């Protein structure tokens, strides 16, 4: 009886895995475009959050379960809240007089920058030796394996990042501390 259920589960995954990638990708692109285009800052921030969520779902659908969940935890739980708090804590008048040094370039500048970045990335991707080799079978990356790698081969980078974040935390606390001297 259990085999019957297991077969069903495997079937359901095969049938919809393609759509599980395509639909969130579309949502992600639309939400990102909306985040760039909307005038209302809060709406833009919420659309950005939506595109973070969709990106997490794309990762999960592609089999990178751990990365997808961490994407949700960090970007939706922390980064989105950080952006929202930054908007809440700055008054609109702070932004009224502010002008970007590149504002004179207008939309042409934006399009040129984006196109330049796209060309540079594409050139880099197609010239890389990785693109010329055939795709290996998708690696299976259980969470335990990722944990072992992080705690084994990649322990030094992990610790360095940890130290960096601790330094940032202490720096933020120092900035927020009240000045005792008159």
């Amino acid at each position: 009886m259990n085999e019957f259920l297991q077969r069903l589960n495997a079937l359901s995954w095969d049938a919809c895995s393609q759509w599980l990638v395509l639909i969130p990708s579309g949502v992600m692109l639309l939400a990102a475009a909306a985040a760039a285009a909307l005038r209302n800052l809060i709406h833009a921030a919420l659309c950005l959050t939506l595109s973070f969520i969709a990106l997490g779902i794309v990762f999960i659908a592609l089999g990178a379960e751990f990365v997808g969940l961490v994407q949700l935890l960090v970007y939706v739980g922390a980064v989105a809240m950080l952006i929202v708090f930054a908007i809440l804590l700055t008054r609109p008048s702070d932004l009224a007089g502010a002008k970007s040094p590149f504002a004179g370039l207008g939309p042409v500048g934006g399009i040129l920058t984006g196109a330049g970045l796209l060309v540079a990335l594409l050139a880099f991707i197609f010239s890389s030796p990785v693109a010329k080799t055939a795709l290996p079978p998708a690696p299976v990356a259980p969470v335990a394996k990722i944990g072992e790698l992080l705690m084994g081969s990649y322990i030094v980078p992990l610790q360095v990042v940890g130290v960096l974040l601790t330094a940032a935390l202490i720096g933020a606390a120092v900035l927020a501390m009240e000045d005792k001297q008159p």
Partner: protein
Amino acid sequence: MNFFALPVHFVQAPNELKAWFLSLLASFGVPAWLLVVISAVLVIGTIIGVFLVLFALTSVLERKILARVQNRYGPNRVGPCGLFQPVADGIKMITKEDLVPRSADKIVHFLAPVVMMVPALMVLAILPYGRDMVPAELDAGILYFFAVGAGTEVAVFMAGWGSNNKYSVLGAMRAIAQMVSYELPLIISAVVVAMVTGSLAPSAIVTAQGDFAFGFFPGWYVFTPWGFVACLLFYIAALAESNRCPFDLPEGESELVAGHLTEYSGFKYATFFMAEYVGMFAICGLLVTLFLGGWQAPLPFLTIVPSWCWFFGKVAFVAFTMIWVRATLPRMRIDHLMTFAWKFMLPMSFAAFLAAACWHYAGRGPLAWALSAVIVGVPYLVLGNHFTARFSVTNRRYQFSE
């Protein structure tokens, strides 16, 4: 020969029922893709149904328990002992006028209750409700719980901002600050369990707690020194995460009307209410899974009781203690709340972390017990002394109700 071994059909009733129903449909020639859909709908429908019934029951039982603690009757008019009160409440909520402030951000105001409900229901997917009863068997189930649960903060912010009301924004900012602060001890105390088990899968964590020491003493993590501390920390942080008393100051009536819920009425308010309670059950379920042995029976001969009965029994017990706490403790002040999170909960969760690591490397025997007890006990005494040094703690004198 085990006299208590029952036919699997009884203990595994929900699973057997589903498999029987699906194979029945298959014999009628229903195509496989439709079976997949039906199978998923069956599971999801059952979970949503069970938790909505639990929510309805709890909403009336909570008021009854609070009333009992406060020496009054509580709801007792609708149905036997007031048990149909949720029905009356539901009719009232649905028929009430849905007010939207004129200057509100209409879309955000409308979407907030929906966004609140989605993570509350989604986190239910990874809880092991019984033996072989995990709706979604995820390798990183615990991570999934916290990742999806992060959506709640977005919903609270949307509710506060969308209402365009200063009380709503203040309440939402308080709620988010509190959730972010208490998420740290919550996640660290869950990580302790994942570390000792060596897995983030909830079913593996439950299985690891299934042994009985000396043949009768359950091997639940709460019965180890580090597990006891982590369990208490997780419980306190869970209270704060679900915005329950004594951490319910985002909705402190006396200063903020109702916080981010101020501008909500009718069914939208009911949705928030429901999401909060379902979220509370979910986090109680996670606490039971992590520390109280999940669906494992407390004594060997009690394994004849179906595993899902144990799970829901334990969840009901933890939820009851949360109601009890609400009836007993006054609301905290915002600065006390933050101080408590950062200066007490966080160091204690690190101590539990260290104690668990020592417990593991000292061989999990009596020596490990003593070592980890010292590692969590010393910081507790030091921190406790530090924070209570300014107050003289004496027995309370009752002036009116003696």
